[in-house]
């Protein structure tokens, strides 16, 4: 047995040595750019590959949660190897900016590529895809008009009929933050308390799990990002497609302020060692080529209205978007978290 552990040690030592020689971690060639990414889509990898082909600049990625990347950036300070940070949700991007870890970048290509509302006013981060926070409902229990507005989720009509994801999730925080921006904290609190009172169960599971709960009859409606619904619709698993069959989707508040829209975006790190390449990649992400490529790969919306969306999305037609500056989602984030906590929506 002792022999075994000695052999195991030799094995481990050689394996460690092997890892140290791994060229992708050693960084032999200099023509690369490093990304910290909180977006984990295979589509992104394809996009980076296309960038590599077009420019010869290799893209190295470290995926993790936005919060964890923020802590790592903070600890690394000016020693960081990260040049670009990519994250879903403006709330996350704002937090990284707020921690002073991004630098302001403005170029004509970026300004032409990203509508003013979908970027940081100072240029710390730039959106490159859009997602809508929609309401999905069970078709055999709910008429679409009954969930035409986010307000409806707080109606007494839905007592015990709403499921929701935990408010630890940044999508929920941003949804409430947008309401605080438009209607004030008092209104936002009343709404959150109203939805909370309608819960069929304590928040648990992911966005997809909420949709499945609605389809299974545990509840009648929920909030989710639009692409989760589309993924079920286009899933390889017939059970997922059966779920989507039972579900209807509405873009809320079309008669009012419009549907809450958020971004995925990217920003150049304050201490980027390869700033020019990072900017080049950022410009590439919002270019026609990348936007056109991204649309069918991921069922998100392109950042510019003139780029055609994925066929499934395009079929739904255009919808009215809520018009608030996205940095408001960051500014009201702490208050949103506090409100959720106070009304017991955990």
């Amino acid at each position, binding site marked *: *047995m002792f022999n075994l552990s000695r052999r195991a040690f030799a094995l481990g030592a050689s394996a460690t040595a092997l890892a140290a020689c791994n060229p992708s971690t050693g960084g032999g060639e200099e023509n690369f750019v490093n990304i910290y990414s909180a977006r984990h889509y295979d589509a992104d990898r394809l996009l980076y590959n296309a960038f590599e082909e077009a420019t010869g600049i290799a893209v190295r990625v470290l995926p993790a949660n936005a919060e*964890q990347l923020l802590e790592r950036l903070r600890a690394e300070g000016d020693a960081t190897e990260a040049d670009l940070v990519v994250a879903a949700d403006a709330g996350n991007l704002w937090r990284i900016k707020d921690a002073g870890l991004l630098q302001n970048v403005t170029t004509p290509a970026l300004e032409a590529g990203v509508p003013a509302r979908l970027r940081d006013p100072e240029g710390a981060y730039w959106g490159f895809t859009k997602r809508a926070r929609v309401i999905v409902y069970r078709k055999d229990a709910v008429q679409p008009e009954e969930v035409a507005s986010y307000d409806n989720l707080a109606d007494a009509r839905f007592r015990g009929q709403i499921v929701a994801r935990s408010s630890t999730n940044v999508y929920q925080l941003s949804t409430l933050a947008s309401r605080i921006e438009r209607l004030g904290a008092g209104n936002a609190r009343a709404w959150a308390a109203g939805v909370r009172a309608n819960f069929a169960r304590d928040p648990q599971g992911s966005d997809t799990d909420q949709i499945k709960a609605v389809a299974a009859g545990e509840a009648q409606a929920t909030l989710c990002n639009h692409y989760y619904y589309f993924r079920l619709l286009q899933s390889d698993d017939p059970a997922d497609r059966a779920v989507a069959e039972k579900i209807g989707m509405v873009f809320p508040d079309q008669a009012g302020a419009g549907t809450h829209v958020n971004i995925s975006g990217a920003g150049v790190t304050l201490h980027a060692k390869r700033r020019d390449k990072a900017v080049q990649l950022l410009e590439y992400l919002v270019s026609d080529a990348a936007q056109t490529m991204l649309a069918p790969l991921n069922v998100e919306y392109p950042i510019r209205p003139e780029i055609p969306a994925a066929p499934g999305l395009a079929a739904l037609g255009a919808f009215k978007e809520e018009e608030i500056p996205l940095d408001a989602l960051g500014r009201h984030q702490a208050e949103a978290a506090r409100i959720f906590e106070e009304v017991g929506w955990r």
Partner: protein
Amino acid sequence: MSTSDAITTPQARALRLDGVALAAALATLLCVAPVLVVLVLAVFGAGETVTFGANLTRDGAIGTLTLMLAGGGGAIILGAGAAWLVSLCRFPGRGVFEWLLVIPLAAPSYVLAYSYTSLTWAGGLIPYRIEGFWGAAFIYAVGLYPYVYLAARAAFVSQSSCAIEAARMLGATPRAVFWRVALPLARPGIAAGGALACMEIAADYGAAQHFGLTTLSTAIFRAWYAHGSSQAALQIAAVLLLAAVAFLIIERYARGRAAFGGGSSRWRPLPRYELNALAGTGALLFCTALIVLGAIAPLAWLARLALLHANVEDVAGPFLNSITLSAGGALLTLALAAAIAVAARRIGAFGRTSLLAASIGYAAPGAVIAMGMLALFGLAREAGWVGGFGAGVALVALMWTYAARFASAGIQPIDAGLARLSKGLDASARTLGAGPWRRFMRVDLPIAAPSLAAAALILFVEILKELPATLILRPFDFDTLAVKASTYASDERLLEAATPSLLIFVAGLAPILLLTRSIAKTRAGAHE
């Protein structure tokens, strides 16, 4: 327990600075440093705290405690029951179950949670939903019982057959033997295994978060993610760590001052009870149910999902990375754990304290230890000791974090193995003039060798399953299986997550099967 006290001479109590003690002190320091940094930052760190942090902490503490009672209690009952059946009874399939019962160890709690959700929630195969508090308790019980099973089985197997035979000769029924002889004798083992299971529960984030529970672990991440306050997160983490200290002390106390000397040193195969047809079938079903619930059902479901989604990215790289990291991390942790465990047996109070201190990290989520490690790195950078967080530094930090997080999982089995060291042996070696290193190499290590191997295998599997620290500290383009699975799962792509999740299990299976073999051998003279 009092074995060491008994052989500790006044000379040793005077804390002679021998090599083993120095090595142990250094090992303890390494294991404790990231934890200490977290505690220090929690008290002195700058940054805003959240106003209702106290509420979160209170609710989290209640959540963690109740989950430990329900999930940990379940794991103890299932694990100790299964260990009793396969060690001391005879029923159809016993020999096979002895191996198979350990299998759920290879499946991480978060993988079980995702799989059971997909299996039993809407659109799944089974209409009874695994959810909420009892869902999490169920996952912990069926996923973590092997920790108790392993420790309890080792304890049952290493019992002297004399005590049991004597009891039987005195007319004790099987039930009485179990409750009044075997169980009390195995108590230290069961307590150690139960403690590991409970600490796993305390540290778990993935499953608890998935089921929407407020525990100390999820409260840490709620403060961190939802409120954006890493300071409040550190403070809740400090509460968790201090609770772990209290828990460890209670556990030591619960083991009692039991020291089982005596008995015969002539080992014979354990006398096994022949179960009648009904009881035998019951035992068979019980063991089958454990394996099906803890591994086969959730993994078969994952396999189905993996087959549904065929266009899997290349997982060979992550697979190799996982194996490499786990092997390296396990060996480093093993070395530190061995030094600490041996010192604890040799040098009384000081050793015991360092053993306790090095065990705290096991109750903390990996992300908290990783935050401590990042802070240490920040200090080292300011001092000019390291430059950037390059690949080399990242790997070292990662291995170090594993050691701080998992030392306890290595120390426990080694400590249990050393407990078999007969009282006189160390004293004899000393009388014959053997120095500390010589005794360490020639007496302690050979005796603890089987438990060292067991510890190495447990550590390998633990690190294989580890997620958050790996996520935070790894180098660029260095994905492991757990990272792959988690990035897909966090994006709610369970189909894509299925393949790497399954591979974690596959990679962990071989060491686990080795582990069961090594246990079967721990009993001298064991043969079937």
